[in-house]
């Protein structure tokens, strides 16, 4: 998750040049969320010292070879201790075994054996199975971002279609694991894991809206994220029981929901205008009436 945050920082640096004001809007709110969680869970090994990392201690030091020549800002945001790299390798390898063993300790043990590390390392993951699920979510989000940045097809679509497409791309990443996905969802719903899973979903939804070209900055921002969060979750759950070839029914369901949401937005807008018009009309007739009453 933190690696992802660091990548986003880099993306932000490049995006600012491309898309002007809108990207700035999306970042500030999230950045505080990310950095506060960074510092509360890890005493960052490389911000402590002496940026004077000694090459002589390289046998036990945590500086990865790539940080040697990087600029200081990047080094501060991107410090990767060796054990974190190993943990990521183990988690990456474990994903390949999820289909067989589910999201469990066994999967992670198999992953560790594949990488060539003692399975004891599994005990050091904070919430074990949840760590694997969270890693997967981050990985998918990263892939989604890469797709967005590289994909041209989104430009031609209208917002509602863009959202539909993005949610579809994201959910397709889960398709290979669909048989074990209910287990992953149950881990995410566990009270201990809810803060992290909520944060990850919030980031995902925000990312999709941003890619769909959202410019909102007031209460709309929250309303939109909430709506999309609801659509995403509903589609995700629908997908769990969908047996149609290539999840055709799920995508139809998704399109319907997105259409509903946009219609609802239009309906609400129209309702607001109507209320305003009625109010204005009533107001003027009331004014007229009161005027007549007091004139007498």
């Amino acid at each position, binding site marked *: 998750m933190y690696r992802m945050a660091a990548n986003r920082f880099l993306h932000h640096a490049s995006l600012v040049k491309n898309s002007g004001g809108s990207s700035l809007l999306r970042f500030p709110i999230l950045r505080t969320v990310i950095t506060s969680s960074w510092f509360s*869970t890890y005493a960052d090994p490389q911000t402590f010292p002496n940026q*004077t990392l*000694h090459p002589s201690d390289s*046998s036990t030091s945590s500086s990865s070879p790539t940080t040697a020549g990087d600029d200081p800002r990047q080094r501060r945001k991107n410090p990767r201790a*060796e054990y974190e790299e190993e943990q990521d390798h183990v988690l990456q390898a474990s994903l390949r075994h999820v289909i067989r063993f589910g999201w469990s300790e066994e999967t992670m043990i198999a992953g560790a054996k594949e990488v060539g*590390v003692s399975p*004891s390392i599994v005990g050091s993951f904070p919430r*074990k199975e949840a760590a694997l699920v969270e890693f997967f979510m981050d990985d998918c989000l990263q892939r989604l971002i890469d797709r967005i940045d590289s994909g041209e097809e989104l430009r031609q679509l209208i917002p509602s279609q863009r959202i539909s497409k993005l949610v579809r791309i994201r959910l397709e990443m889960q398709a290979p694991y669909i048989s074990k996905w209910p287990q992953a969802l149950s881990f995410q719903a566990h009270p201990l894991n809810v803060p992290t899973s909520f944060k990850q979903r919030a980031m995902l939804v925000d990312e999709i809206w941003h890619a769909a070209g959202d410019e909102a900055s007031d209460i709309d921002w929250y309303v939109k994220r909430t709506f999309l969060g609801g659509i995403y979750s509903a589609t995700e759950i629908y997908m769990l029981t969908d047996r149609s070839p290539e999840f055709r029914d799920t995508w139809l369901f998704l399109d319907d929901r997105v259409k509903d949401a946009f219609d609802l937005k239009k309906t609400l807008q129209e309702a607001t205008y109507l209320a305003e018009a009625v109010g204005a009309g009533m107001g003027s007739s009331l004014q007229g009436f009161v005027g007549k009453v007091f004139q007498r």
Partner: protein
Amino acid sequence: MALRLVTRNLRNRISPKLCSASLLHSHATSFGFKEVREEEKSQMVGKVFSNVASNYDLMNDFMSAGLHRLWKDRLVSELSPFPGMKHLDVAGGTGDVAFRILEIVNSIRRRALQDPINDDLQEETRIYVCDINQNMLNIGKNRAIERGLGEAKSLVWVQGDAEALSFEDNSMDGYTIAFGIRNVTHIEKVLTEAYRVLKRGGRFLCLELSHVEIPVFKELYDIYSFSVIPRLGEVVAGDRESYQYLVESIRRFPPQEKFASMIADAGFQKVKYENLVGGVVAIHSGIKI
């Protein structure tokens, strides 16, 4: 229970060698609050444990009001044992930690969830219980027999010195030392040996009585330690001096942060510690990468 993460993989620049050397030297020559010669310390500790061996478990129950069982449970759950594991429990004389690990590995619930492949792995599990004191090991072996584990291939009782282990490099998945590191002469040698025998990805876990910092609780704990425990030792085990040594050695042992940095110095990564009961006991852990 507070969880703090201390990851320091570099030595501090400010004359660390002098500081740590003097601290270690003082540990090597301290027997409780008494000063002894380095060579004598291990002998004196040996005598202590030969004396307490027969009543060791009973006294543990008395002194900690049975809490030591929960602490060991916590230690083993932190470890997350798995079938096929090669584990080394140092200073584990009477076998408490080893029995718990074996129990988890063999538990029915686990077996029910596994593939048949893993049953073979279960056969390969080896828990080595290493202790410098033969009396403690004998007590452990008897307890194993009582539990029906007398013939178990997975339990191996080895007499040995934590500072010079007879195991090969990179051979262990896990290393635990419960209430033992306080009694060694050279802490850094034990940590280096631990690093040596662990495989890549292996974990080091240390359960030890540690320092309490919480204001009022600290005073109560001191009163309990210095007044109640030696008296208990006298009454129950007939050995006041050994228990006096015990409580004094707790005070002489480095505090949590210092010990964590020593573990990091030995080469371990992701070093962190968890205080139980406000610091009366601390579980330090690290990974070898």
